[in-house]
């Protein structure tokens, strides 16, 4: 028996209103004609025009996408390797330290991660810019990827891999032909997670970048500190919509894959 009382309905309604209203208001007021953000003066898309003509925003957006793409690809490779080590490598020396290093960056305050990486780059005499931000983002994002991928690795039937090895596959072939296709959805969601974490990051990027590279969050930050502005509202709306469309598409594709897998399994059961 499921109980859906008035209490549950109200708490869900208020809860989701709280989660979504601020963003809905932001989106609505991004179409406000007035320069005064909180006073409605009619519908207009002029702030979108301003954003798209602002080369500083566009340059920063390009840097951000570049950093996010490079770091999420690197993080996916490293994170998947780390997940395989955690789940399949058995015991080895320094395993406790290894799992500590996987979990710790996720709970570490960003100011500490940023500061420590900056001091590392300085003591190595590295020029700071896109490259150092990529290194920094890869390091914390690979931990998230490895958690996502290892939860999939734990749950699938290991005998499939053993069968492939028995049938003459090399370990590399078994990974490529059996393991990778099975964990692929987790690897893809790990990549997406790494990509958005990198897009989102302000604190670590501020510490690890140099004068040559400004990311979009850094650009937004320096303008937002001065107060609310209609341009930032428009830019935020664009970012919210891009992410929402991306996430919803990804989850629909994922759902379709799961359905297909279920159908195939059902068909296989019938044959057996």
């Amino acid at each position, binding site marked *: *028996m*499921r109980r859906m009382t008035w209490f549950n309905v109200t*708490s869900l309604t208020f809860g989701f209103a709280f989660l979504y209203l601020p963003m809905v208001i932001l989106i609505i007021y991004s179409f406000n004609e007035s320069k005064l953000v909180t006073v409605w003066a009619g519908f207009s898309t002029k702030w979108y025009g301003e954003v798209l003509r602002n080369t500083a925003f566009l340059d920063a957006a390009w840097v951000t996408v570049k950093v996010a793409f490079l770091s999420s690809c690197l993080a996916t490779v490293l994170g998947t390797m780390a997940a395989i080590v955690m789940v399949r490598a058995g015991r080895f020396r320094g395993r406790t330290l290894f799992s500590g290093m996987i979990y710790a960056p996720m709970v570490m*305050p*960003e100011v*500490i991660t940023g500061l420590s990486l900056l001091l*590392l780059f300085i003591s190595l005499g590295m020029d700071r810019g896109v490259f150092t931000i990529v290194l920094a983002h890869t390091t914390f994002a690979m931990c998230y990827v490895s958690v996502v991928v290892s939860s999939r690795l734990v749950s699938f039937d290991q005998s499939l891999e053993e069968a492939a090895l028995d049938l003459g596959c090399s370990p590399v072939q078994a990974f490529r032909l059996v393991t990778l296709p099975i964990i692929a959805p987790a690897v893809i969601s790990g990549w997406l997670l790494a990509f958005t974490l990198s897009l989102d990051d302000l604190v670590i990027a501020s*510490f690890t970048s140099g004068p040559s590279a400004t990311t979009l969050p850094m650009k937004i930050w320096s303008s937002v500190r001065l107060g609310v502005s209609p341009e930032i509202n428009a830019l935020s709306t664009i970012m*919210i919509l891009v992410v929402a469309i991306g996430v919803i598409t990804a989850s629909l594709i994922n759902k379709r894959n799961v359905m297909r897998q279920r159908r195939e399994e059902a068909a296989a059961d019938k044959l057996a």
Partner: protein
Amino acid sequence: MRRLLIAIPYLWLLALFIVPFVIVFKISLSDLAVAIPPYTPTLDIAEGWAGFKAFLSELDFENYIWLTEDALYWKAYLSSLKIAVISTLLTLLVGYPIAYGMARAPEEWRAMLFMLVILPFWTSFLIRVYSWMGILSQEGYLNQLLLWIGVINEPLVILNTNIAVYIGIVYTYLPFMILPIYAALEKLDISLLEAAEDLGCSRFSAFWLVTIPLSKQGIIAGSFLVFIPTIGEFVIPSLLGGSRTLMIGKVLWEEFFSNRDWPVASAVAVVLLLILIIPIVLFQRNEQKQREADQ
């Protein structure tokens, strides 16, 4: 092959996670100098053993002593702890009913509700915090609404106070609280509640004696997930808090970028890390217990 597989991520994390901390610790022991970089190292590795001896003889914890002498740092650590505790409790109060409602919702809704909780998580943190600036300011939407209804006669001052910081933290960290509690409540066997009611429990006492204890793991996990990152939070107090909102993440940032005092900024980071070790270890232990319980 196996060695290589272990070595690559291992070395990466050693080089970019552990080594940086060693450097932070080292710089926290050095002295401030007007130079680039702005500190004089007290440990010179190039001089080998002699350098190490010189380092030991000159070793002082003056940056740490400085932290204990200047009341600013004490107050910042304590007020970060206070803000983190209060906002964790507030997030629990707001998040529990939502998680409870989700777990009781019809089966076919749940995937959708789950998705709706996760979606804000993918949107930029900075934008989510920023969206409250327009709502909470003097001439903001909240004040406009309240004035229009007639609840208040003059606008409330919310932005740039600690109240705005609490609202910002609850808002941005809410999904971290909802998800673990929802996971615990969803597993809960509803017949236990029916049994409790059959045995004479009121609905409320059944909730208090059965539901709450059985969702304890989720409550603990969610609270740590909110508490730990909140202590070092920087963006929320800087945008929503006022000049009187003291939080250690903000102090560290200003020490580094405005005062350019790297040794003190490093010492602040080391102490913050020491404070965080306790909740992090407790959190790991809770997760471990849950994993064992699941098996």
